[in-house]
């Protein structure tokens, strides 16, 4: 995955931090103080599209063939800049009844992006 730099228009990961104090949630979320959400943005030209996380192999060759056929038959191709790796977010918070709860929410932090 590539991190966005400058005016890059290609698919990349843009860092985005949600400060719980800034959104007024620091009173009920005890830890952490914020959340590195991050997101994927940018264009995915057809020649960049691939199966995220797939190394060069027989399967890549087959996929490229399919893409080439799709390009010949349709317009657009449907490739999209999407998260290819995520990690969980651990939260310590007060619930409705003021109990302190510790939980791990899966797939919250975007670690890498790629073209689908």
């Amino acid at each position: 995955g590539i991190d966005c730099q400058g005016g890059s228009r290609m698919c990349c990961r843009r860092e985005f931090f949600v400060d719980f104090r800034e959104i007024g949630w620091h009173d009920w979320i005890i830890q952490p103080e914020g959340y590195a959400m991050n997101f994927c943005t940018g264009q995915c030209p057809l020649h960049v599209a691939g199966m995220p996380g797939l190394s060069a192999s027989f399967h890549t060759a087959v996929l490229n063939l399919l893409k080439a056929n799709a390009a010949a038959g349709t317009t657009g191709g449907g490739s999209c800049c999407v998260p290819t790796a995520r990690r969980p977010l651990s939260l310590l918070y007060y619930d409705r009844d003021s109990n302190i709860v510790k939980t791990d929410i899966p797939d919250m932090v975007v670690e890498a992006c790629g073209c689908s």
Partner: protein
Amino acid sequence: ILQTAGPCPSCWGATFDLESQRELLLDLAKKSILNKLHLSQRPTLSRPVSRAALKTALQRLRGPRWETLLEHDPTQEYEVISFAETGLSSINRTRLDFHFSNRTAGGREVRQARLVFFVHLPSNATQTVNMQVLVPRPRGTNLTSPSQHRLQVEGSGWHQLLLGPEAQAACGRGHLTLELIPESQAAHSSVILGGFSHRPFVAARVSAGGQHRVRRHR
């Protein structure tokens, strides 16, 4: 759900101005957290608890022993792991470089350093293999001879070696170099693996209150 002219939602980045984009993302983050916690709205606290009271409660939960420890020893320990970068190597010696961040090196005390590495011995090698680990002294010091450690390797697999004060000090300075030298003929045909899943590493136990502790002891 975003209505855009682009082929997929992630292409909208270019079509929104920065402020709208920011508000949209914050809204998305809030909805995502509430949704995953199965909450329709953020909880409203009728009796907010002060941070100090919360800290005390958490300390008590961990038991009196922990509380005593915190009172008498305010230092905090954690472990930093640095994976090796292989430098100039030959059949007779493997050079490993370890880098530690400034946060680790910034005056904190490294209390223990362990080298962990994977050795692959040929299938016909049955005897033990002696391995010498050198910690070269930093340039500019009066002492020129390196610090040495010896280790017996009895088979293929992961091995670990507790490094001495020189290596600990090097970790504290931010950079540690080690040289692994096999000592016997059989050892020369062994391989110290460095691939993705077998990369050697150093685990350093660091004390966050190192400087304070040193001052107190003096």
